[in-house]
């Protein structure tokens, strides 16, 4: 005789900075309509198929790991989302970027970055630059600059990040006295697949 495992778990949520901002706005933009699950803290290399106690213990290390409390910075949580795929899937979707780490020059040509994922041809992407002092982030659609409200979604309070939702962006260097780097993170809005590159704007001698 034992007790049944209760699979319903109750957890308390905290508002992110974005959530607080939208709630304070009071214009109805704080409207939760969907959820996602993530496993940022988990290292699947700890899945131990050689565990002496057998298959029920393969994940013992992971399952007994206490987890850090949630952060309010929406960029530091929910980074690695769980995804629904067919059971026969034997390879995860891959995000391909047309460019890797890159240097930008003030006054030089815009640098295009095109994202595509292997599993979803019509997927849109969120490009997030964590420091907008480094570069402009311009949304493109079908090869043309587009700044519709659906493409440029948000620019956060501290103006340290720019988010553009589209399949292509172009980077335009800002004029800087000293070289500076920023992290450009690209996330598939459907599959959650993500990749980051470093963008560096070189110092402009005329600045």
């Amino acid at each position: 005789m034992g007790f049944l495992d209760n699979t319903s778990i109750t957890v308390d949520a905290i508002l992110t900075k974005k959530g607080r901002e939208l709630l304070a706005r009071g214009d109805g933009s704080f409207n939760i309509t969907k959820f996602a699950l993530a496993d940022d803290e988990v290292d699947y290399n700890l899945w131990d198929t050689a565990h002496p106690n057998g298959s029920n213990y393969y994940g013992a290390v992971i399952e007994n790991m206490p987890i850090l409390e949630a952060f309010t910075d929406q960029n530091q949580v929910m980074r690695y989302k769980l995804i629904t795929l067919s059971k026969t899937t034997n390879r995860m979707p891959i995000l391909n970027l047309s460019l890797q780490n890159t240097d930008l020059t003030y006054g030089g040509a815009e640098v295009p970055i095109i994202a595509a994922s292997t599993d979803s041809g019509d997927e849109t992407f969120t490009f997030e630059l964590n420091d907008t002092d480094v570069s402009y982030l311009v949304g493109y659609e079908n090869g043309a600059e587009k700044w519709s409200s659906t493409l440029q979604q948000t620019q956060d309070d501290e103006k340290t990040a720019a988010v553009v939702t589209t399949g292509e962006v172009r980077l335009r260097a800002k004029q800087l006295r000293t070289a500076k780097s920023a992290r450009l993170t690209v996330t598939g809005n459907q599959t959650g697949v993500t990749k980051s590159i470093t963008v560096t704007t070189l110092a402009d001698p005329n600045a």
Partner: protein
Amino acid sequence: MAINETFKTLEPNIDTVSDRTTVSSGLFSAGAGSLTAFYSSSNQGASSASYLNVYDKAQTESTREVQFAIGYASYGGSGSIGNTTKTTAGNRETAGMYRQFANVLLPPGTDKFQFTNFASASEDFYFVVMNRARMREKMDPGNWELRIAAQAGGKDMKFIDDSGATTTPTVNQAGRVFNVVSGSISSGTADVKRTAAAGGALGNFYPDLGIIILDAAHLQVTGSITTTRSPNTFDNTNAQWFKAISTGSYFAARREEEITSTMYFCRATNQEFNFSNNPTFATKSGDTEGVFTQTTFEGDPKTYISQVGLYNDTNELLAVAKLSKPVLKSFSREAVIKVKLDF
């Protein structure tokens, strides 16, 4: 939920439930339900008749916090310097206090307080005003007791409100109003020694504002608080009022807060969320990019849920919850996670 998706829609009224609950807790610092020692500030009240802040700890303690303020208010300005004929310069703090309380607590057109079962209006009163940070939203009626020690010849008093005996409290512009009566709640329920109908109310209690006022004349008659309150004179009445509370050594109170909670039932069925974008779940570079790092995951993938994110239509993360331990998810397991969000 479609294949290749990371977001799942929450169905209104099925996956989302809102609830409003009233939470009560101890009113004083760190959620303490009562105070037995009271401290004032040495540099306050020595020359002004306006009010005194009361702290939970001595002045030498850096963590002390204001718990409530006390003071004395007089319609005619007794106990403070200044007079109506302008012959004496003074701020008439006690008169200012009386008018302020009257404006805030009484209906328009009423300039004096009149307590239950008294024929005439009250000319002066002592007040206790709870610190807003301590009180948060409101005081909990029927769950406070203030004791004062009488001066020589008088009798000690225990004050409570009569909310337990009142099913329809008076409601005016200051919200609900209850009579302050003598009695105690130390037994767990209100034990009223003398009702307002029998002996007259000793004052008024405004739970929505966290204000208690006590009729000075009535307390003078009972000998509980015999302060000096002379016209055009700074009598430091507040210090005498503080001494009565301080030597009474007991003030218990609770606060009430209404919390709106929304529960989101995040259901992961057996077919959903069985793959992960975690960089350790699949190889991230080279020719094998995308291949599972654990070969046993082919045909029987396993993931762990450690975070739940709540999003709006434009995929903005509004709230996040973390599980205390990762929960295993696979094609043979389902999970329901109830996420509670308080406002």
